């Protein structure tokens, strides 16, 4: 019965999109976003909820009359995390008129950086892709638009410094998946270790991370004061469990942004109590945008997926990415006028100033030079029932982050 209902929901959504499209299409060209993500391979842990959030937000915008009367249309395709399928999906979406693409897959995004730059199409790489794309002059069409992994590491370090008795003389273990993503925070943390005088040790575990016991035996003998876990998907609950099993107190575990409700369920809500994570977007439904989504989209059976997912971590991240994108489109339409193109949308993004999506996220200011938008975030803690923020929105050590961004951008500009 539930299946059937979900099916009905999907029909409803499609019909809704189709009819609303018909109703307004005469005078206003729709704005097309390509959400070409990995629904079947590595990123399945996030892409379902993330994409649902994106689609629901776009439905909300359309139900409320669109952006200046323009409907926003999502082109959703699966890429299976394979670069060649990503390239096909991208070329197709571009022919259909997409002016913004979101792959939510590091391999696909990396393979398409050059194409996007030469085709002048906006690519948003929130929480994936290259961190050095924050350098707007080198990567004009690429927008990380949320804290990069480097900024996430610095925000976590700042939290430890402010709330856990300083960093000086502390021992911090970074337990990460052995991949470019897992290693990304290492240089930044090494710089910080030198600057703040703490001892950093890194412990890589082999991909996919479903088995980490040997690594944690080593971590325990290092006797760290704090542990940062840097992984995604199935490796994360294993990390948390192994940490706790090895006697590391839950409130000394800090995670990258990829730790969400499903991981809590997997580890056990009471075991997880005290674990902290970086947060780029606030979680929960206590927000005007989510209330409107609930009212206009979910209650009207226009949602793109199960209603239970509304307000989860990844759902809200999806909503936030689209909120920024729609805001950029609105600014672009205001100043540059219709029809919207890639360069106009890019200009729109760079006009975003102190935009916080009605308190859903930290205020973001994107400029031509800084496509990261400030790199702000906060730390939140699982209190047994929900993720509770334990710090204020803010960015930290952006000078150190900027050094990494510049180094990467310089290498890219030289042809790397």
């Amino acid at each position, binding site marked *: 019965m539930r*299946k059937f209902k*979900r*099916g*009905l*929901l*999907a*029909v409803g959504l*499609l*019909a809704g999109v*189709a009819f609303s499209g018909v109703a307004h299409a005469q005078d206003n060209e729709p704005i097309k976003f390509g959400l070409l993500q990995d*629904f*079947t391979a590595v990123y399945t842990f996030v892409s*379902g909820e993330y*994409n*649902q959030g994106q*689609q629901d937000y776009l439905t909300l915008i359309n139900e409320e009359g669109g952006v200046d009367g323009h409907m926003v249309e999502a082109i*959703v*395709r*699966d890429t*299976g*995390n*394979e*670069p*060649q*399928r990503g*390239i*096909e*999906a991208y*070329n*197709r979406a571009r*022919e259909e008129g997409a002016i913004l693409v979101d792959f939510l897959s*590091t*391999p696909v995004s*990396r*393979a398409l*950086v*050059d194409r996007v730059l030469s085709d002048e199409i906006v690519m948003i790489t929130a929480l994936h892709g*290259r*961190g*050095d794309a924050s350098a707007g002059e080198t990567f004009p069409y690429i927008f990380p638009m949320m804290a990069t992994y480097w900024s996430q590491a610095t925000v976590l370090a700042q939290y430890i410094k402010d709330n856990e008795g300083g960093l000086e003389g502390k021992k911090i273990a970074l337990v990460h998946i*052995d*991949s*470019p993503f897992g*290693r*990304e925070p290492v*240089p930044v943390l090494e710089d910080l270790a030198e600057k703040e005088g703490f001892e950093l040790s890194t412990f890589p575990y082999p991909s996919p991370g479903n088995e980490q016991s040997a690594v944690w035996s080593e971590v325990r003998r290092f006797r760290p004061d704090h542990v940062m876990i840097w992984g995604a998907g199935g490796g994360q609950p294993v990390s948390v469990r192994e940490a706790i099993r090895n006697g590391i107190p839950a409130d000394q575990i800090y995670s990258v942004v990829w730790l969400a409700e499903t991981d809590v369920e997997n580890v056990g809500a009471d075991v997880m109590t005290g674990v902290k994570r970086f947060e780029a977007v606030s979680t929960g439904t206590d927000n005007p945008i989510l209330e409107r989504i609930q009212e206009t989209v979910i209650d009207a059976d226009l949602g*793109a*997926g*199960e209603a239970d997912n509304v307000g989860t971590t990844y759902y809200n991240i999806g909503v936030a990415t689209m909120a920024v994108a729609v805001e950029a489109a609105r600014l672009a339409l205001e100043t540059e006028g219709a029809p919207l193109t890639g360069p106009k949308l890019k200009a729109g993004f760079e006009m975003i100033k102190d935009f916080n999506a009605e308190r859903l996220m930290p205020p973001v200011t994107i400029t031509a030079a800084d496509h990261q938008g400030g790199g702000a975030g906060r730390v939140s803690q699982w209190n047994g029932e929900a993720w509770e923020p334990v710090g204020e929105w803010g960015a930290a050590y952006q000078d150190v982050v900027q050094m*990494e961004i510049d180094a*990467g951008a310089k*290498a*890219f500009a030289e*042809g*790397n």
Partner: protein
Amino acid sequence: MFYRLAGVHHTRYETARALWPIPADRKQVIVAGLIALVAPFFLSTLYLGSYMLPWLIWSSAALSLTLLMGMAGQLHFGFASVMAIGAYTSIHLARLGIPFELALIGAGAMSAVIGTVFGAAALRVKGLYLVIATLAMQYLVDWVIINVPAISGGAQATLRTPEVSFLLFPIESLTSRYYLALGWAALLAVFLMNVKRTSFGRALTAIRDKDFAAAVIGVDPFRYKLMAFFTSSFMGGVTGAMLAFCFYRAVTPEQFSFNVSIQLVAMVLVGGLGSVIGGFLGAAFVLLIPIVLTNFVAGLAASGWLAISSNLLAHVPLMIYGALIIGFLLLEPLGLAKIYDNTRKYFLVWPFRHSRS
């Protein structure tokens, strides 16, 4: 009808030995070649750049692998790593300022040497044990690429291909890249068709069928197996370089992951072992069917014919794809090439039915 055999007389050995002794086959090849040649003029960028071009390159890879798997009977589950070696070698050579033509040869040579070393290590074992030995190659090569920043290109692990020209033609526009890939695929196809008729090819076939028996008739299995590994890895290396320069133009380790190895094996098997046309058909099936299915299913859903959740929607193409592989194998276990062959044989004697084999 199409394959009119009446009136085809071979009066000289050369004509009887030709690659396509029947005129109808020749015509088909010519037509296919012409279509491939003029494709850039009538295909849109979408179809040329994301269907034809990758298909040709993956066909080249499948052809390289089919020499080893189909003709010599040596399973290889780490062929993506061979291509990775070629891709990275060619990029680094081209960046050092070495002409692209030489960089391609260097890429092939590097892959061939490393591939042969692993081949030699694996030659004590056969069949499934060889699978795991070549798998080990995949993991070792992956590990080295990821862990040596000088190879993978630093923290972002992305290397962009420098601008190069091949025989004075700049390899920059989509059309030029397409023609380069087409040339390489055609070269490989012709090479493979001819290699079957040489003593080398026959020796490989003898080893595939029974290597002890081959040894008895004077074919040194060790030597020929190594030669097969060498040749196949060389072609794979150059194909890897083609993939990097003509298609991706920015190389990351994930492009040559273990999954790609499995896909290559699937291309060879679904296409038909040791068959040239099978290489092309298999590559088309494994590479393009998932893409086509994804678009088809998404299209169905958009027009309201398929009312299911978006999660299921994303997985339906995977299910159909798996079911298609199963279905084709149940229908014709010898691969797509055999289906082509059956069709051809049917029309060869059409309207009679008696010599269908």
